[in-house]
């Protein structure tokens, strides 16, 4: 396998895109290509993620983006894996480059749902669940994760204050991120006063519906030349799946796909969790950050919820988690989220994260979940 780098990365601000998803995706792709120093003609493939493109009456957006980028001959494919779509695209890029099928690959994720009302957007999100066996039985995404939160609380005593501390932390980080959807801090009191959306989860436990686009350029070391930014070396690119429906899982205290993807990723990289300096994890709901930290192997089962109140996962803590603000506060433009996590790690590795810069950046982990864990990506990055 060839050593494979992330050599360029760019993102829009998350929140409400003024233009179409197609335009935003093309703009960030061009910015990522320009920043990479890669000749666009060396791009051998474009993987685009846009799970809810139909909300803009658009499918097959890859050729439109490539045409607007001046590379119409480059093949493209749309990669859909619900909320883990663009990290799945990154995995495909890694496979192509590491395997020698392309010298450079463009990965783009984009979503635009802000023109929909909350009810319609909630219904779109629910399409990532099993329609006849979950959604038709009343499930929404907050409801599915709330069910996991209920089980975690029953088994481990996880409290609202512990979940609230995660929301407070991630809002504090997002307030220092010019790309974040929410750029204001909240207090625990604000969190506790917010309305229940799906018990025990409150409004401030939930990520927002965000528009956004993010892009990364992946290249073989020998094709990268002398990049202008410090590249991320992809030390592991692991994907896993699990039984999709909650009703077929006997254990509801975590996400099995996170566990198996993490084991594979750490094996690929030849390190353990102790070597990781900071993480971007899939916190679509506060409970999801708890589950991620436990399933990835950073905390024993039932022990991660205390990390928030004790400050361990703050950006200046022992293990900074979601310095970007995470899905919870940076925002969650479904198909852009995975690529956006990599943009944050790229900025952190290059010490361009400003007020949210974490102190150590030798190793970082990105964790991105599709739906309630039917899919999961774990990537590990280090310096050259």
């Amino acid at each position, binding site marked *: 396998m060839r050593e494979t780098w992330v050599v360029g990365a760019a993102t829009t601000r998350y929140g409400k895109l003024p233009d179409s998803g197609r335009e935003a995706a093309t703009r960030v792709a061009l910015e990522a290509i320009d920043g990479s120093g890669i000749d666009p003609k060396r791009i051998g493939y474009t993987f685009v993620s846009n799970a809810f493109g139909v909300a803009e009456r658009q499918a097959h957006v890859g050729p439109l983006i490539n045409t607007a980028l001046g590379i119409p001959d480059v093949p493209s494919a749309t990669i859909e894996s619900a909320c883990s779509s663009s990290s799945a695209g990154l995995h495909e890029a890694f496979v192509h480059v590491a395997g020698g099928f392309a010298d450079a690959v463009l990965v783009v994720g984009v979503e635009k749902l802000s023109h929909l009302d909350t009810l319609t957007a909630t219904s779109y999100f629910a399409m990532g669940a099993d329609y006849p066996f979950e959604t038709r039985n*009343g499930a929404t995404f907050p409801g599915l994760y709330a069910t996991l939160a209920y089980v975690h609380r029953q088994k481990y005593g996880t409290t609202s204050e512990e979940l609230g501390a995660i929301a407070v932390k991630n809002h504090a980080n997002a307030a220092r991120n010019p790309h974040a959807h929410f750029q204001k801090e909240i207090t625990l009191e604000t969190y506790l006063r917010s309305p229940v*959306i*799906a*018990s025990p989860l409150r409004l401030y436990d939930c990520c927002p519906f965000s528009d956004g686009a993010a892009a990364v350029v992946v290249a073989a070391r020998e094709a990268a030349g002398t990049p202008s930014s410090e590249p991320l070396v992809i030390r592991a690119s692991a994907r896993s799946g699990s039984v999709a429906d909650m*009703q077929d899982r006997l254990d509801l205290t975590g996400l099995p796909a996170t566990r198996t993807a993490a084991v594979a990723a750490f094996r690929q990289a030849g390190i353990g969790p102790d070597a990781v300096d900071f993480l971007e994890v899939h916190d679509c709901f506060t409970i999801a950050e708890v589950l991620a930290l436990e399933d990835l192997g950073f905390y024993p089962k039932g022990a991660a919820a205390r990390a928030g109140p004790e400050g361990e996962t703050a950006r200046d803590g022992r293990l900074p988690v979601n310095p970007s603000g995470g899905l919870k506060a940076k925002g969650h433009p479904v198909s852009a989220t995975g690529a956006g996590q990599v943009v944050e790690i790229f900025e952190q590795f290059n010490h361009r994260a400003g007020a949210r810069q974490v102190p150590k950046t030798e190793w970082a982990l990105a964790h991105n979940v599709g739906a309630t864990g039917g899919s999961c990506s774990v990537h590990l990055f280090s310096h050259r």
Partner: protein
Amino acid sequence: MAEESVGPHSIEAFRHGYEEESRLRGFRSGCGFVTATWVLVCPRCGIRDLVEADLGSTGRLVAYTVQTVPSDEFLNDAPYAYVVVDLDGGGRVTGWMAGITEESELAAGDRVRFSPTYKPGVQFVRDRPNGGGP
């Protein structure tokens, strides 16, 4: 007149079971796993000779949430409970319970009974010892 029969190995058969026959259907695998989801092969052990099974209509709550923000098909039903139920006949199924407005109205371990209504999907009600409704 009897409805035209639908094969057991179809999602439509599940829907028909819920809505027309008041049956919760599933498959029993040779490894002991019981699923109430449409599959062709056991997701646990990989064998194909699954046996169709009636899973009964009663069980106990494993987990639940009270949802105040519904999806569009439940617009007029919120708040309601989304529930995970271990069925007495084996298998685990998800469904919903109308009229639950507070988390404190239910508890893990509560007995519930499948009770189909006009609305699609799997609806449960509290199971009273004398067979009474909610």
